[in-house]
């Protein structure tokens, strides 16, 4: 009798131990959970573009005002509107403006402003750099496990710009007005001859 009790207690311990150490889960559910844990820059960029970007673009300053302040009062311009990540002399800004000039098959569109001091070019073929990510100031580097992930956001945003905004220019006709909100990255102490604008929002007015 004692032997049966011993065996029963031992069996119970084994069952409890096994129950707590082994569990079953559907493979598709498991995979879904794992993919949630994996960093996906495309998802993050799309979420930002669809849900957050428009609110942030409201803070863009007029390109003419930007141009004059860049020369006359760069300290005020950077303190009021500039965004910088880390230790750098460059700042990113959100600017708004419009242009009528369009050269088919070109890589950029010139943006002329009355009494402008610098030459501005709206980028419409190759979008590089972190200007879009940093000017919008939505992503915090400390939220990313490593800087590669942080930079992958820029890559995805730059793709979205070409897919969703620059593509609006495909059916452009002569005389159309291109209104834009874009990102500019610049060192106010070292202003280049040409300033590139990365478009974040484009509207074509006919």
């Amino acid at each position, binding site marked *: 009798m004692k032997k049966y009790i011993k065996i029963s207690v031992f069996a119970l311990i084994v069952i409890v131990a096994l129950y707590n150490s082994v569990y079953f889960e559907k493979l598709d559910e498991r995979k879904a959970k794992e993919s949630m844990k994996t960093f996906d820059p495309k998802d993050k960029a799309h979420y930002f573009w669809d849900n957050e970007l428009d609110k942030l673009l409201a803070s863009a300053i007029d390109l003419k005002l930007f141009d004059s302040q860049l020369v006359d009062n760069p300290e005020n311009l950077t303190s009021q509107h500039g965004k910088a990540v880390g*230790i750098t002399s460059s700042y990113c800004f959100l600017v708004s403006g419009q242009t009528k000039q369009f050269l088919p098959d070109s890589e950029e569109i010139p943006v002329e402003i009355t009494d402008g001091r610098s030459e501005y070019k709206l980028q419409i073929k190759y979008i*590089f750099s972190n200007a879009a990510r940093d000017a919008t100031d939505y992503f915090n580097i*400390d939220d990313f496990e*490593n*800087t590669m992930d*942080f*930079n*992958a956001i820029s*890559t995805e945003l730059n793709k979205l710009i070409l897919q969703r905004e620059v593509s609006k220019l495909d059916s452009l006709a002569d005389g159309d007005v291109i209104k834009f909100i874009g990102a500019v990255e610049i060192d106010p102490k070292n202003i280049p001859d040409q300033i590139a604008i990365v478009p974040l929002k484009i509207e074509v007015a006919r």
Partner: protein
Amino acid sequence: MKSKKLILCIIGLLIISQFIFSCSKSNNNVKKIAVVISTLNNPWFVVLGETAKKRAVELGYETVIFDSQNNPSKETEHFDNIIASGYKAILFNPTDAKGSVANVKAAKKAGIPVFCMDREIDANDVAVAQILSDNYSGCVLLGQYFVKKLNGKGNYVELLGLVGDNNTWNRSKGFHSVVDNYPDLKMVAQQTGEFDRNKAMEVMESMLQAHQNIDAVFCGNDAMAMGAYQAVRAAGKEGEIMVFGFDGAADVVDAIREGKIEATGMQFPKTMAKTAAEYADKYINGERNFQQKIPVAVELVTKENVGNYVAFGKAE
């Protein structure tokens, strides 16, 4: 007589013990900072380590530099010694983004704050702060210049750095984020040169034998750029193959000036090292509010603007 000798002996022992005690006490009062560098076999890291040491000494710390010789187990040994020796902070240049996390965790557990310099670790809650070059953006600039110099067409090879280091991939990805948009630019080979001049020279020699029509080589650091340049020169192809580097080392800045190398990305090791030492000092003095990752901008150095730069920084 005997008791007199005994009393003199006791007094002598007391004086000696007092002296030893006071010495050990004064040693305890000196605060120590450790500077752990991935390798001192590269002048760039020597500048990083020496600048960190100099700034820490200026701030009143006794400072020792440890060379990990690009060997993660050597790095772990250094951390074990540092933890056992009562250091107050570690200014750290890791050997491996993932492998070095355990060492930083061990230091944190022992109450020693770690400040990463130049190279990051794959964790954002272990080190107090990580001061890093913005490698990606720097290589976007280099990529744009590369495309311009090659007129958007040609064959090129890439020499990568250490595969376990995030800087290697940030540089490569930044560069490719630009050049991959140009279908007439073809990468005919990509291989690691392990950030090492001699290794890069060997790899480049093999690449030159395997591919007759190389127009350019993009190197993940300046030591490799110099190695690649030596191989190109030995093959009699100087002037035919453009060499691009990354770092801002003295020999490459000179080579750009002489037209031997096309461009480099100027990093600022002195800025990173000084910032790390100053953060450590602030931490030791009670501050706890630090941003985890602080990228430091990289600037493009070419023949057109090389006059504005010296080795490892801007001309004064």
